[in-house]
């Protein structure tokens, strides 16, 4: 269709008009090839401004719109929508940035006006070459894959299943419940885990929409948001793997506890008196707190074991150890009323709801908090000596103890790296899976349709884990409930007549969007995978593959305008 272009120069109040002679630019624009109407207006983004475009588009039969105003990063969606309402394809709208890149940086009126003309000229030239594009949608496979059967995975699976979608829940071990199943009671309410976890597990097991795969792992994932295909392989060899199709994935692979053997100064593994917080949970569950057959009189907790430690490459705070220590110290006080319980700490971080109160309760229960990061443990008779500087006294002390509890931190599970590799998910420097945005997209990942729940993303307690699991489930439900996913319109396309099948576009694409058609030997682009970066188009010598909306003829037209003006 022969271009019929409307050009709109925005004053942006005085932001543009004070420096750029908008009338001169408008007069100039009217002379450009294909331009049917050129106007200037105070605020093009205002209601009346947008109405101008709509009205002209209808009455003059425009098929291209050029707006010269602010950065397209600001108002391109506005003007695309306005033009669309006027019957112009939103992808046949082009903007000239005469504010940020002209009036605001070039104070000389003559120079700024001249440059504005060049930018408008280039925009008109590009607009003449713009093709209409369609925003398309792909159908979504109803169903989700949840990887990991701990609390995060259980909660996410339940929410998605309750919303009516099939869920495939894959767990490496032979039981559901994850790390929480190893705990005795939880903070800050000291509620026994046994009172709620089995019910949660049972709910999942009996849910008609949930298929549980125990002793299994995900060995392969292909596809994209809305249409993933995963292979679930049993860890035991000989059994056949399952192939499942889902629209969204929730990763909830959890954490490992730090191995305190990597801090040899604590003598863990050498002295039976030295245990981890996780081991103490089991002892608290069994009720047997004796060491070498004797009831401890002196109990010491050591915090930050494997956390906040640059030397070990674990610079982060594990966020739960302070509360766990406060909880266990109270439970030990209850179990052993005659024992003295001392917690050695660097800082006490009992943040969050009921956190500080819980710390208060621990101290009121008789737990002594002493500030100092324990440096060494050695034997003295039947006891061990905790050597530490009490930094508030500025004095080094040898604190004899019968039981020493190391508050071990959390670390990423090695299996999370495998999942990250399968999905090309980035991880942060500490090895935890990386969220798409720390504030606005905390459960999303860099891969559309893949969400994070629980400690695979970073250390957190049970309430935070459950909250994140519910957020991940809700996010995963967006594509599932919509039933369709939007596709980038400005994707790469291949002209099969021109394509010689060299496969360079296939090689260079980071998203595996193009693939060689085995029958025809030419490249084809899966539009759902294409992110529109255009690397493929440069690689193609005959331009058989091109990035729509940024095609060679469009860009060369801009070049010619800018050099020619």
């Amino acid at each position, binding site marked *: 269709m022969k271009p019929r272009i409307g050009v709109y120069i925005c004053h942006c109040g005085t932001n543009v008009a004070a420096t750029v002679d908008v009338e001169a630019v408008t007069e100039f624009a009217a002379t450009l090839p294909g331009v049917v109407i050129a106007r200037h207006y105070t605020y093009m983004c205002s209601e009346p401004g947008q109405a101008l475009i709509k009205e002209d588009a209808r009455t003059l039969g425009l098929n291209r719109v050029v707006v010269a105003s602010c*950065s*397209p*990063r600001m108002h391109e969606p506005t003007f695309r929508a306005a033009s669309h309402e006027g019957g112009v394809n939103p992808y046949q709208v082009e903007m000239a*940035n005469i*504010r*940020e*890149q*002209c009036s*605001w*940086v*070039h*104070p*000389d009126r003559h*120079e*700024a006006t*001249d*440059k504005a003309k*060049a*930018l408008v000229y*280039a925009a008109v030239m590009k607009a003449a070459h713009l093709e209409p594009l369609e925003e398309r949608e792909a159908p979504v496979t109803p169903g989700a894959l949840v990887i990991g059967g701990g609390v995060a995975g259980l909660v996410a699976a339940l929410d998605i299943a309750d919303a009516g979608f099939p869920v495939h829940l894959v767990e490496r071990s032979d039981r559901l419940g994850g790390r929480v199943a190893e705990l005795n009671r939880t903070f800050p309410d000291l509620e026994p885990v046994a009172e709620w976890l089995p019910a949660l597990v049972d709910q999942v097991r009996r849910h008609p929409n949930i298929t549980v795969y125990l002793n299994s792992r995900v060995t392969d994932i292909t596809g994209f948001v809305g249409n993933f295909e995963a292979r679930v392989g049993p860890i035991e060899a000989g059994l056949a793997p399952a192939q499942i199709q889902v629209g969204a994935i929730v990763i909830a692979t959890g954490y490992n506890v730090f191995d305190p053997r990597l801090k040899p100064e604590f003598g863990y593994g050498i002295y039976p008196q030295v245990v981890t917080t996780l081991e103490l949970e089991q002892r608290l569950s069994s009720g047997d707190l004796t060491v070498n057959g004797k009831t401890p009189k002196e109990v010491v907790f050591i915090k930050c074991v494997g956390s906040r430690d640059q030397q070990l490459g674990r610079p982060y705070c594990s966020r739960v150890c302070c509360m766990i220590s406060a909880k266990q110290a109270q439970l030990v006080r209850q179990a052993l009323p005659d024992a003295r319980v001392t917690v050695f700490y660097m800082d006490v971080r009992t943040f969050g709801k009921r956190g500080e109160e819980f710390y208060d309760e621990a101290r009121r229960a008789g737990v002594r908090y002493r500030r100092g990061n324990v440096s060494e443990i050695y034997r003295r008779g039947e006891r061990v000596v905790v050597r530490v500087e009490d930094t508030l006294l500025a004095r080094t002390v040898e604190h004899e103890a019968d039981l020493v509890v190391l508050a071990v931190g959390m670390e990423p599970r090695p299996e999370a790296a495998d999942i990250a590799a399968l999905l090309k998910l980035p991880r942060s420097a500490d090895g935890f899976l990386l969220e798409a945005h720390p504030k606005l997209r905390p459960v999303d990942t860099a891969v559309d349709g893949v969400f994070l729940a629980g400690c695979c993303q970073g250390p957190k307690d049970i309430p935070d884990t459950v909250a994140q699991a519910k957020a991940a489930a809700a996010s995963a439900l967006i594509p599932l409930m919509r039933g369709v996913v939007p596709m980038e319109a*400005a994707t790469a396309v291949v002209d099969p007549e021109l394509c010689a099948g060299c496969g360079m576009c296939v090689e*260079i694409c*980071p998203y595996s969007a193009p693939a060689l058609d085995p029958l025809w030997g030419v490249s084809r682009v899966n539009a759902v995978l294409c*992110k*529109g*970066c*255009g*690397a493929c*188009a*440069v690689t193609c010598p005959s331009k058989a593959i091109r*990035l729509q909306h*940024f095609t*060679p003829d469009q*860009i*060369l037209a*801009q*070049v*010619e305008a*800018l*050099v*020619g003006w």
Partner: protein
Amino acid sequence: MSDNGFEPKIVAFLCNWCTYTGADLAGTSRIQYPPNVRIIRLMCTGSVDPTYVLKALLDGADGVLVGGCHPGDCHYQSGNYKARRRIIALKEILKQAGLEEDRVWLRWISASEGQRFADTVSQMTQYLKEKGPNPMKKEWAV
């Protein structure tokens, strides 16, 4: 200096996510720089076709600036690494073919480096003023 009132024309191919946004930031920060640069917005430096650069130079542009995200920061994972190789190859060809490769500049400028964008344009404008006009501007037989 051979200024003589010569005002070089610089065509800039900027990636949408870093340098184009950096140029916007220079604007919102009201950092002044010479008006000699004219920007073409692309999604990624990985989509800057050397043919565009050649076309600009043969048409008579005095300089071509290619601006993208710093290594490791590409919105599309690796477009800037690909661009780096292509620009290196192109500049070598220009050099070998007796054309002036120093008219082509590649710069990594992030979205937060408005000042660096303005500085780069100022430097490039000054450099090209001293170098003089692109001989292709008058060359009709190309």
